[in-house]
């Protein structure tokens, strides 16, 4: 199994920052962590930092106790160096494992966001009011409230999207029988029961972590098997920007790191509100927040597998909402990918989000703009990339199908050049042969490249006539994918999971057997 993993795409990274600029930002981040330092709302974390040489003192702010922590540069640098540079994220199907190596820009794309709204798409016919013989097809969109059934559908769909490498649940479960207490086990179960790729999520309740980990052990085949093949991992946004270390998330980080499972230390400051809008300020601040988070994980347990989770966004200046599909977003994210590479920690990045509320031209522009640039950065683990609309507020499966096609083209585009001496020699022979023929056509000689998958196919949803049928064709493809069986867990595993994990909804199993 150790050799199996998804191929991904190794790219030649596009770098905005020079080495000098990287060092300048690194020093700026260390300086921020040293003074003013961080505002820590978790006593245990503050103590841990203090025990390792940070300057810590207590303050009361608006009636709340907090600890000011000033981290010396040496403490941060030493801790970050202990974070592993290379590790695997596991999967139910070992062929779907991911190899994250900070020094190899192998890119993977996945979902994300845990939206509350699912957007269903149906094609309808419309007749022109002026001419009854003119009939067109157009999409109609319906908003549904996210639930376990839709999460299962999303996972089954993502299993079948060939350019999707990992799964972060894109829809929240809001069923009447899902409570805060059983939320974690049911969201992980529904995901793992419908996809064999890596599953990652945030944790709702710290006291359900043990149940989630036990479920993962049963599915992976035991404690040792889960260590070798961590089929699940977690996301912890331990900083509330600017520079505030969150109490309950810090507790979750303690528990997840102690459980030995991989973790994303993510930070998402908004340029113009919770961070400077200027590139230098934004990157210095987010980098400081992530470095402090990584330091924290390594102080809990040296060598804990952790991702550099950078989700820097910009504020819209008309309403201060997040603004994803804009040039600054790409600049911030590319810089962060370079910083992660500098620290030798695999990078969790973001692409494919925009303001568009439905699939169409605007969505295509916003998504392509970031899908392409962030992929070019060589960030190893790019989330939010499939199906998101209305920023990160809704998930549309038809959009996910469209994104899969777009990401496939980007992966193809960014492949490494094939220009070895053999390639050049073969080309010379081919040209000589063709020039010796009467027709001077290279078409026949394209076959080898076609069969090797080196020649890309036309856009899957292209229209040949005078009307744009992209969405209609994506709707049809979604229906075809959804007609395929889901890769459910075996009956034995299901029995064991249901026997041992409290809080799982019996109907989820019942619905599967119908």
């Amino acid at each position, binding site marked *: 199994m150790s050799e199996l993993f998804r191929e991904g795409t190794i790219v030649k990274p596009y770098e905005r920052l020079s080495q000098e600029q990287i060092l300048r930002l690194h020093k700026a981040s260390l300086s921020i962590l040293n003074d003013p330092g961080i505002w820590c709302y978790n006593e245990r974390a503050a103590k841990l930092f203090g025990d390792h040489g940070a300057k810590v003192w207590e303050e009361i702010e608006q009636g709340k106790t907090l600890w000011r922590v000033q981290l010396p540069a040496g403490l941060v640098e030493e801790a970050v160096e202990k974070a592993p540079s290379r590790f695997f994220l596991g999967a139910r199907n070992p062929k779907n494992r991911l190899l994250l190596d900070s020094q190899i820009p192998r890119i993977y794309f996945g979902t994300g966001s845990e939206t509350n709204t699912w957007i269903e798409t149906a094609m309808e016919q419309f007749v022109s009011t002026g001419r009854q013989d003119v009939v067109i097809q157009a999409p109609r969109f319906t908003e549904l409230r996210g639930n376990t059934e839709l999460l299962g559908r999303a996972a089954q769909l993502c299993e079948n999207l060939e350019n999707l490498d990992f799964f972060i649940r894109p829809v929240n479960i809001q069923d009447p029988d899902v409570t805060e207490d059983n939320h974690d086990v049911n969201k992980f179960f529904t995901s793992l029961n419908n996809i064999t790729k890596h599953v990652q999520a945030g944790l709702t309740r710290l006291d359900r972590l043990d149940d989630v980990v036990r479920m993962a052990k049963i599915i992976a085949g035991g404690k040792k098997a889960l260590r070798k093949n961590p089929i699940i991992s977690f996301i912890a946004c331990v900083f509330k920007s600017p520079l505030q270390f969150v109490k309950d998330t810090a507790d979750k980080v303690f528990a997840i790191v102690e459980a030995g499972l991989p973790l994303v230390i993510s930070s998402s400051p908004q340029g113009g509100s919770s961070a400077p809008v200027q590139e230098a300020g934004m990157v210095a601040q987010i980098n400081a927040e992530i470095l402090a988070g990584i330091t924290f994980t390594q102080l809990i347990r040296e060598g804990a597998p952790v991702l550099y989770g950078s989700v820097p966004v910009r504020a819209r200046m008309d309403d201060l909402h997040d603004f994803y599909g804009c040039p600054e977003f790409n600049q911030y994210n590319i810089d962060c990918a370079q910083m992660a590479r500098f620290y030798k920690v695999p990078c969790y990045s973001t692409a494919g989000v925009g303001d568009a509320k439905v699939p169409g031209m605007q969505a295509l522009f916003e998504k392509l703009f970031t899908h392409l640039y962030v992929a070019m950065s060589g960030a190893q683990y790019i989330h939010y990339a499939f199906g998101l609309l209305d920023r990160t507020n809704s998930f549309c499966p038809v959009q996910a199908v469209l994104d899969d096609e777009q990401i496939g083209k980007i992966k193809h585009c960014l492949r490494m050049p094939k220009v070895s001496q053999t390639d050049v020699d073969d080309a010379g022979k081919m040209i000589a042969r063709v020039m010796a023929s009467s*027709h001077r056509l290279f*078409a026949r000689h394209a076959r080898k490249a076609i069969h090797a998958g080196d020649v890309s196919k036309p856009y899957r949803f292209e229209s040949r006539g005078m009307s744009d049928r992209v969405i209609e064709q994506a709707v049809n493809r979604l229906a075809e994918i959804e007609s395929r069986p889901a890769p459910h867990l075996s009956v034995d595993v299901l029995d064991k999971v249901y026997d041992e994990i409290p809080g799982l909804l019996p109907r989820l199993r019942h619905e599967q057997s119908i």
Partner: protein
Amino acid sequence: MNEQELIEKIAYNVIQGRVVAEDEGFDEGLEGEPAVTELMEQAVEQNIDAKKLVVECLTGSMEDVGEKYDKGIYLIPDMLASAECVGAAMDILGPRLAKAGIETKGRFILATVAGDLHDIGKNIVGIMLKGAGFEVIDLGNDVPADRIVEETRKNNAQFVGLSALLTTTMREMEKVVKSLQNVGIRDKVRVLIGGAPTSDKFAEQIGADAYCRDAFHAVDVLRKMNI
């Protein structure tokens, strides 16, 4: 290899689109194995009946290839590779077929008209026509009307295929049709035209027999003419 094995192997290699041994096929691992040229030469050495070779190795195989293309299994390069195989086989069999009094489907004069250097489409048509059993005389590109007419007359060709990519050169096609009339052989030849700016309507306007939107359509048009 006995006669039947050899025939089956040639047919298989036509479908695989392998002209010579160094070609790869559609299936994996065929590079280096004898292909249509080598196998057909062996068939000739073994004195296998030329007509039998045409019917059993080439005609049926091209029908298979056409079906695979229609189903989207094969792409144009695969189709052209198979057509080139048939062309290569016909080059080897030609003298024996002539000796046996077996005729091709007809003689085709092919040219890109005067003033136009574009010949990719015309070359693809040439490969496909040869693959479909026609004898093709390709005059190249930028060919004046007089020469096209002269070659048609001299070779007793039954078909003339004209290609143009430019709106400025397509009018040359009309010149060719008129010249064929002027020398009194227009009723002895079928004129097929093609190229991006041309159309059914344009073919009708200039008095051509058919417009072909691409090489595959050209083969279809000829089939519909019962040729």
